[in-house]
C-alpha cells in the first residue's frame, strides 16, 4: 500500500508536468471518443437508412431464389418457419413480399418494372412505405390498386385514378396479366427505385403471377444493428435448407466495404493521435526516472527490492494514464450524449446530397459503450507498454553509479 502512496505522491512532485502529460491523454481520449462516436453514429444512421428503406436487417428466402431470382424459386411459408420467426425474441417485426418483373403499360407506352407484393400494414411497419406516397392514398388489404413510383408514372404518362396494364410471365410459365387502378404515386429518394417500382398488395401480386400463397422473401427487423448478431446466429442455426437467412451486410456488401474503408481511415487518424500521446508520456517517464536515479539507488540500498521499486514506477505511469483517461471520458461522455440527443444539422450541398439519397441531413453520434471503453483500453495498453521502460530500469539500475548520480 505504501508503495502505491509513494507512486501517487511522486506524481505530484512536479504537478505541472503531471497535469500536462495527463492533459495530453485527456485531449487524446476526448478527440478520439468524439471522432469515434461521430463515425459510429454515421454508420448507424447509414445502416438504419438502408435497412429501414428496403432490405430490412435480415431476409429469409430459398437457396434457389438467392441464386436465381425467378418466381419459380419462391416458397410457401410453412408453420415451422413461421413458428421459428414468431418465437425468436429479438425479432421486432417481419413482413412478407412477392417480387417479380413485369411489363407495365399505359395507353401507348410500355416499360419493364419491378412488381412488389406487400402486406400494406406490415410493410409500413418495417420500411415506412406510406411516407413515400406523394399523391393519392396508401394501399389497404382490400384494395386492388397499385402504387407507382413517380418517374415510372411520368414515363407511362399516368396519374392517380388512371389504370395500367401489367403483363408478363407468372409461376411456372403461366401468363400473368391484369389491369390495375393507380391509387397513389410514390416518390423515393433513390432515382433508380423511382424508375421501376410498382407496389400492390401481396394477395393481388400472388393472383397476378398465379403464385397463390407464394413469397419471394420475408423481411425481418430487429431493434438495431447491435441486436442483430444473436438473432442472426439463432436463425442461421434453426433455419435449414432449402431456406436460408441473410443479413443486410451479406445482401449489401458494398455498404459494408464503404463502412470498413471509412473505419480504416478513422483508425489511422486515431493511431496518429495515440502515437503522439505515447511519445509525450514516454518523454515524461524517461525524465521522471533519470532525474531520480540517486533516489532510486538509495531505496534499493536501504532494502527495497527491485520488484517493489518496479511496482512504484509502474503505478506512476499507470496513474498518469488513469488520470488522463478518466477525465477524458468524464468530459467526452456528456458531450457525445448531448450530440447523440441533438444531432448536428447539415446545411448546403452536403445536406442536399444526403436528402437526395434519402438520408436525413444530420450528423449523428453514437453512445455505444465500446466508443468509450475502447479509448480507456487503448490508454491502458499504452501505459503498460511505456511502463516497460521504468520496470526494466528498476531491474538494471547500477547501484553504485546511481548513488553517485
Amino acid at each position, binding site marked *: 500500500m*505504501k508503495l502505491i502512496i*509513494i507512486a501517487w*505522491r*511522486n506524481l505530484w*512532485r512536479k504537478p505541472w508536468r503531471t497535469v500536462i502529460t495527463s492533459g495530453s491523454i485527456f485531449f487524446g481520449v476526448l478527440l478520439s471518443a468524439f471522432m469515434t462516436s461521430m463515425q459510429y453514429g454515421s454508420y448507424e444512421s447509414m445502416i438504419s437508412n438502408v435497412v429501414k428503406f428496403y432490405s430490412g436487417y435480415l431476409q429469409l428466402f430459398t437457396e434457389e431464389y438467392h441464386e436465381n431470382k425467378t418466381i419459380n424459386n419462391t416458397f410457401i411459408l410453412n408453420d415451422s418457419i413461421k413458428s421459428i420467426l414468431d418465437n425468436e425474441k429479438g425479432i421486432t417485426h417481419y413482413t412478407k413480399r412477392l417480387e417479380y418483373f413485369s411489363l407495365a403499360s399505359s395507353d401507348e407506352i410500355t416499360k419493364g418494372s419491378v412488381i412488389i407484393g406487400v402486406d400494406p400494414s406490415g410493410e409500413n411497419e418495417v420500411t415506412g412505405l406510406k411516407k413515400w406516397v406523394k399523391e393519392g392514398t396508401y394501399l389497404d388489404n382490400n384494395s386492388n390498386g397499385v402504387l407507382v413510383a413517380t418517374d415510372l408514372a411520368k414515363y407511362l404518362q399516368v396519374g392517380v385514378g388512371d389504370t395500367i396494364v401489367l403483363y408478363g410471365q407468372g409461376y411456372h410459365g403461366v401468363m400473368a396479366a391484369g389491369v390495375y387502378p393507380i391509387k397513389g404515386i410514390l416518390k423515393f429518394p433513390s432515382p433508380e427505385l423511382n424508375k421501376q417500382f410498382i407496389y400492390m398488395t401481396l394477395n393481388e401480386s400472388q393472383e397476378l403471377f398465379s403464385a397463390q400463397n407464394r413469397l419471394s422473401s420475408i423481411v425481418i427487423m430487429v431493434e438495431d444493428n447491435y441486436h442483430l448478431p444473436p438473432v442472426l446466429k439463432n436463425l442461421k442455426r434453426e433455419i435449414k435448407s432449402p431456406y436460408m437467412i441473410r443479413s443486410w451486410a451479406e445482401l449489401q456488401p458494398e455498404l459494408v466495404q464503404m463502412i470498413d474503408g471509412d473505419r480504416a481511415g478513422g483508425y489511422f487518424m486515431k493511431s496518429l493521435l495515440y502515437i503522439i500521446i505515447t511519445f509525450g508520456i514516454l518523454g515524461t517517464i524517461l525524465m521522471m526516472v533519470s532525474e531520480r536515479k*540517486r*533516489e532510486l539507488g*538509495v*531505496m*534499493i*540500498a*536501504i*532494502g*527495497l*527490492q*527491485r520488484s*517493489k521499486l518496479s511496482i512504484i514506477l509502474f503505478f506512476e505511469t499507470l496513474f498518469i494514464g488513469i488520470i488522463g483517461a478518466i477525465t477524458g471520458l468524464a468530459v467526452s461522455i456528456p458531450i457525445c450524449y448531448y450530440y447523440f440527443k441533438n444531432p448536428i444539422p447539415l446545411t448546403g450541398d452536403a445536406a442536399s446530397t444526403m436528402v437526395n439519397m434519402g438520408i436525413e441531413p444530420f450528423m449523428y453520434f453514437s453512445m455505444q459503450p465500446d466508443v468509450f471503453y475502447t479509448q480507456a483500453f487503448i490508454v491502458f495498453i499504452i501505459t503498460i507498454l511505456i511502463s516497460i521502460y521504468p520496470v526494466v530500469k528498476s531491474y538494471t539500475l547500477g*547501484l*553504485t553509479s546511481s*548513488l553517485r548520480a
Partner: protein
Amino acid sequence: MNVIEIKSLTKIYNGGEVKVKAVNGIDINFKQGEFTAVVGPSGSGKTTFLNMLGGLDRPTSGEVIIGGVNVWGLSSRQLIDFRMNNIGFVFQSYNLIPVLTAGENVEFIMQLQGKPKKERDLRTKELLEAVGIGDRIKSRPSKLSGGQQQRVAVARALASKPEFILADEPTANLDSSSTTSLLELMSQMNKKFNTTFIFATHDQRVMDKARRIVTIEDGKILSDEYFDRE
C-alpha cells in the same frame, strides 16, 4: 566479538587498458559497538571499501563476512534483504525519500521488514525523539534543515536495528554546529544501542570522536589505531 570480518578484499576497475586497484587486498575486522573512522585522501579507496562492506559494490575478490554470512555469496535478492536487516546507511546528501515525511522515512524500512504498525509507530517516535526532532515527525525533508535531515537519516539507519551503520562523509554538507551535534548524536546512539558505526570521512571532527581510525591509502590499510575517548 567480530561483527564484520574482511578477508583479502580487492576491487579492480577496468579503465580501458589500465586496471586500477581501488582496494588492494584489505584484511580487517570490526567488533560490536566500535565507532570507527576510515580516513584517507581522495581516491584512496575508502568509499569503494565502504561500498563493498555495505553490499553495494561487488568486490573483484575477497570476502565480507557479516554475522557469519558471506555477503557476496548471496543472490541479488537475498543481498537486498540482508542490507535491510543488517546494515544502516547514512549518506553525504542525506538521501531521504522526498515524498515521505520524516516519520514515514523512518517507518518505511520497518514496513519493508514487515513489522506491525503499532511497533513501527512506537519505534519511529522513539527514534525521532532520540535524534532530537520528535516534533518534526510530519515534516517533509524539504521543510527540514540539512542537519535535521541528517538526523532523520540516522534515525532511518537505526530503524531496522542493524548490526552496524555505514556513514559515507555524513558531515560533508553540514555546518559546524550541525556537525558537532550530529556527531554527538551518533556517539550517543553508539553507546545507547551499542550499534557499530563506520565512517568514511575527511572531517577532522569526526576523527576526533572516533575510537578507532583506519587510514587507507592506495587501496591498502596504512594504519589502524585505537583511541580511548569519552
